[in-house]
């Protein structure tokens, strides 16, 4: 008799479970800005002479602007990220403390006013104690912050927390702001792994889906080192797909080509015998399935790659294009249709210095505000965060000068 009652209860659970599955949203295509696509198509249709005519005169091209994110007094800073605010300003996030992984590390934020080209005073978005009280579990340290714009206009900040061990023991949590980052909700934990939810980190910007949800490129770096594409609905993961496997590629950066196609570039973590180049993975069904593609022939010394796609289809990368070390940081450009990446600016280069005097330039993060310009932040020797602004006219001017179609020879560039 008890067995019959149990089976009846299972039947009830089955009905509830099927209804729950039925209510789950279907996988949506990527959100593609139709205006941007139109601009891209128009650009492709135009002939070379007319393109030249659109290039602004050299005297009217503003040079890139360089600023530093405000100092907090912390000796170690790292992992800066950016998001455009509704009023055209830029909000930056980064972590700062006595050292990376220390208990006193906090996530800071500041706002860049493009009119005055200055940063506001830094504020603390999250510290370890607030995180552990909000999440109702012990947190040992905080890590990478990555902001995103939700479809309802609110800001969401994903950040890494660790309860036990090193970065391999990471999990992702998120907070939401209704007021452009002035105040934040209590944190919520994203569950992404079946093994005590260990080892999922975030570094790169999210991708919006057409249904308003977010696709968040994340990665594992414990038993495996591989990328994963998380489908996020507010504060929870509702699906995920593997972008790579094994122990060779982390920190995926996704470029969306259209509603179905996207390409991910990774930071390589390969063994010494394997090529030190940028691993690539591709999807043709809006991120539901990914497959390995040929490496991008650009050197990568196991360091993060940042990128942004402008409204005319031009893609920009910021990365250390050397085999080892992080003492050289360059800006590269390519159009969406080719993989012909060319260096447009050497941002930092300590190649001429002896090894012990070289600085580290790492963890770049790129965004665009109006679809034509680019804001870049990166860690400057772990002591400061440098910000660079490349205006639309400057990028257009550089683009017009890229006449050579030869692919970049990465190793030669490094020497």
């Amino acid at each position: 008799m008890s067995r019959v009652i149990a089976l009846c209860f299972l039947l009830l659970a089955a009905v509830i479970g099927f209804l729950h599955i039925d209510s789950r949203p279907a996988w949506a295509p990527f959100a593609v800005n139709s205006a941007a696509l139109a601009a891209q198509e128009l650009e492709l249709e135009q002939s070379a002479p007319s393109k030249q005519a659109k290039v602004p005169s050299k005297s009217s091209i503003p040079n890139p602007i360089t600023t530093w994110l405000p100092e907090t007094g912390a000796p170690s800073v790292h992992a800066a990220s950016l998001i455009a605010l509704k009023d055209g300003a830029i909000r930056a996030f980064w972590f700062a403390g006595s050292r990376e992984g220390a208990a006193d590390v906090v996530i800071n934020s500041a706002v860049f006013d493009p009119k005055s080209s200055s940063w506001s005073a830094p504020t603390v978005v999250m510290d370890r104690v607030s995180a552990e009280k909000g999440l109702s579990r012990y947190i040992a340290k905080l890590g990478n912050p990555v902001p995103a714009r939700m479809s309802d206009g609110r800001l969401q900040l994903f950040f890494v927390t660790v309860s036990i061990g090193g970065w391999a023991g990471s999990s992702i949590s998120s907070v939401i702001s209704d007021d452009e980052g002035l105040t934040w909700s209590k944190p919520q934990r994203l569950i992404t792994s079946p093994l005590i939810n260990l080892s999922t980190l975030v570094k790169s910007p999210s991708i919006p889906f057409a249904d308003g949800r977010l696709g968040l490129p994340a990665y594992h770096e414990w038993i495996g080192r591989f990328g994963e594409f998380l489908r996020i609905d507010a504060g929870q993961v509702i699906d995920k797909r593997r972008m790579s496997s094994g122990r060779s590629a982390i920190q995926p950066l996704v470029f969306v080509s259209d509603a179905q196609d996207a390409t991910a570039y990774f930071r390589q973590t390969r063994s010494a015998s394997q090529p030190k180049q940028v691993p690539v993975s591709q999807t043709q069904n809006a991120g539901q399935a990914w497959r390995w593609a040929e490496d991008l022939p650009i050197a990568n010394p196991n360091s993060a790659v940042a990128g942004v796609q402008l409204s005319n289809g031009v893609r920009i990368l910021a990365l250390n294009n050397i085999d080892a070390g992080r003492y050289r940081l360059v800006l590269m450009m390519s159009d969406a249709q080719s993989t012909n990446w060319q260096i447009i600016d050497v941002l930092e280069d300590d190649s001429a210095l002896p090894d012990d005097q070289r600085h580290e330039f790492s963890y770049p993060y790129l965004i665009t505000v109006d679809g034509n310009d680019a804001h870049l932040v990166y860690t400057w020797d772990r002591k400061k965060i440098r910000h660079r602004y490349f205006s639309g006219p400057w990028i257009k001017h550089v683009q017009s000068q890229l006449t050579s179609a030869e692919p970049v020879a990465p190793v030669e560039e490094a020497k």
Partner: protein
Amino acid sequence: MNDFMQTIALIEMSITCAVVVIWLLQKISSQVFPGITKLITVILIGNLFFWPLGLGMELPLAAYVRGALGDLSIVTLLLLWGSLLPATKPIPLAFKCAIALIALSFYPFALGVGMLDPYAWGYGSIAFFIGVLFFALLCGLFNWAKGVWIVAIAIIAWAAHWHESANLWDYVLDPFLAAWALIAIFAALYQRRKDKARSGYLFRPG
């Protein structure tokens, strides 16, 4: 909703810690604790884990344990808590074997071997859900009604989004359940071998 979920998770962890303490006490004690003693001890120790104690700690004890272990699956919770109930029918070895087999084939792929990720099935795969229902049916066929109840409750908890996870795997399996199943299988094999050796000694011919 988030606050409610966090409180529920801390209550669950506090009860779990209390049950583990009672289980350990029972192991070292020569007397079997009566049910009422167990209940009172669960309430007392559970409260000790749930409420912030101060003493330089920023969080309740259960939050520290939760930080290290995460949220346990509903199946683990119910099996563990059910162990305190009087005269419970032993968990069938077949169930332990099935859990161990599933865990051994699940975790390597879920943790990054190859591009196949069985963990992703837990977000809404009909096939996987039918598989879980089939597993519960097998528990019923093996005359273990408790197993049917446990899996059914886990499914309802998943549909109700009881925990932070939206993945059915996190409601039916966790590494501690897998470790328990493996240890129980080895213990059963060892016991069987021991019993066989003893019977062989007693009934050795001539």
